[in-house]
């Protein structure tokens, strides 16, 4: 089975996010960049599928040269090869444009299964996989915590409010991975050495077959007009070094009389 993983590089969860002075973006220097954590579940699952039944694993990403480092991490974990979609025309692509670029790679690679993270932890949109599935005319299953592959189909458990849905889908399909699916491995030292020699193919606008006006900022259907800092929370009232019952009474009273939530 051939499994293709769509991966995105994002700031580390612990990174401090500072808005640029013009309010149009974030300051990118001093940020530690990582593979989006949900994408690690997708990479791990792809590698496990290959270990179990053979085949090939390909990791694909869209971005500048910076993102190659995260792609090498996926290769070091055990993915076979990479496709790096990079072109000045791709800059400022929104979810739909990104999906169009990825779909062009998928059409050329013809995998049996596409895995993505549930969402990337920068913009938290969870849009690209659905756009991708629609562009390909494939079924999709979102936020899967258990995946079982059978002959030509996949059985997926996905969490919903107060329970789980068991979804059965034909393949090929786009499946997005949630926490609980697996425990991603760390890259081993030999893995890291091997990854340096693994192929990363470049994929530019010319290869996508798309027009320059379909991708990048020009093609964006959603425009970010402004970045806003969090509203300041006034300092809270913290009680300490007092009798427990007294502190509790104070807080309960404030919840009723000041906050009016009880």
């Amino acid at each position, binding site marked *: 089975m051939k499994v293709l993983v769509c991966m995105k590089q994002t700031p580390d969860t612990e990174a401090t996010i500072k808005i640029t002075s013009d309010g149009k973006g974030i300051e990118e220097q001093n940020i530690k960049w990582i593979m989006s954590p949900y994408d690690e579940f997708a990479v791990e699952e792809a590698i496990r599928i290959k270990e179990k039944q053979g085949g090939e694993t390909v990791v694909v990403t869209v971005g500048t040269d910076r993102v190659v480092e995260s792609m090498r991490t996926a290769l070091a974990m055990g993915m076979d090869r990479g496709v790096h979609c990079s072109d000045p025309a791709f800059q400022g692509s929104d979810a739909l444009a990104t999906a169009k670029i990825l779909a062009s790679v998928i059409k050329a690679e013809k995998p049996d299964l596409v895995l993505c993270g549930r969402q990337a932890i920068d913009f938290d949109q969870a849009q690209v996989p659905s756009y991708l599935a629609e562009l390909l005319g494939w079924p999709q299953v979102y936020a899967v915590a258990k995946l079982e592959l059978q002959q030509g189909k996949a059985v997926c458990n996905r969490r919903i409010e107060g329970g789980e849905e068991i979804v059965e889908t034909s393949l090929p399909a786009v499946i997005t991975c949630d926490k609980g699916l697996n425990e991603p491995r760390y890259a081993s030292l030999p893995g890291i050495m091997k990854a340096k020699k693994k192929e990363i193919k470049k994929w530019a606008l010319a290869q996508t077959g798309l027009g320059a006006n379909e991708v990048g900022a020009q093609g964006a259907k959603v425009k970010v007009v402004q970045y806003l800092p969090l509203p300041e929370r006034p300092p809270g009232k913290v009680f300490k070094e007092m009798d427990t019952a007294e502190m509790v009474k104070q807080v309960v009273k404030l919840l*009723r009389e000041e906050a009016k*939530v009880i």
Partner: protein
Amino acid sequence: MASGVLVFAEQREGKFRKVAYELLNIGKQIADKLGGPLSAVVVGKGVKDLAGSLGKLGAQKVYVVDSDFLALYSTEGYASAVASAVKQADPAVVLTGNTAMGKDLTPRVSAKLGVGMATDCTALEVANGKLVATRPVYSGKCYIKVEFAGSPQIVSVRPNTYPVAQETGGSAEVVNVDAGISADAVKAKVKEVVKTGEGKIELTEAERIVSGGRGIKDKANFKILFDLADVIKAAVGASRAAVDSGYAVPDMQVGQTGKVVNPSLYMAFGISGAIQHLAGMRTSKVIVAVNKDPEAPIFQKADYGIVDDLFKVVPIMTEEFKKLLSE
């Protein structure tokens, strides 16, 4: 010309989710500003009467896509149904709830219509006749405001952001819409729905949440939080540390890799307040923190805090709430 607002009113087993009523409220406000009607779309099996009931809550027209194969949710079936209703209603704005269903459905509908969308919005406004949506990004460390280049403007809204619509006594015209897809064409099918949280208040819809972290120390100790939650009709959540330690089930996890909640009152017991946890509860209106460690970062986000042992605090607090609520 596209006008008005269309709300996707999510139902499961003949019951609307609370967010459907919230969307009718904010939908009406947007429709009033933009001009055009407030309408709704209901998808399912045997949902016609249910759909009609939305007239009382301000919907002027309700588009119903009713078919046997829509009894259970499927991305392809529901996305095709909603896209058909959008084409017929021709709204300027489409609103959905950012629920498990909405997260899966909304981008697929947007893809079918070839437009963009904004996910998990926490504020909607109208400027120069266009929608401006505000949404948290980077785990809630900042916000962005977005506008749309195409039409309709599609937005999923975080549950509990707006109050529910009030009854108006109006009635809605019910319009039947074809799903635009046959049962055989649906490739991913829900085979079964396994319920684990029967009767419990769903975290993402809860008005009040009581949450436990590493400080709770043992699975059995969650009982004191359930007792407290019973008294104030709260849902019970947990931090990632509590879930990873096996004190709580994954369905209870609040945070970046769990659920994003938005209650009026969030009470954190024995939770230090790691950035990943804050990402899941930061928009709570009032935050209470109880922790032994005065340096715990959660105190910087809390409106009210108690520096003490949660095992001493919780039983007293439960009794105090009991007294207060029996008055």
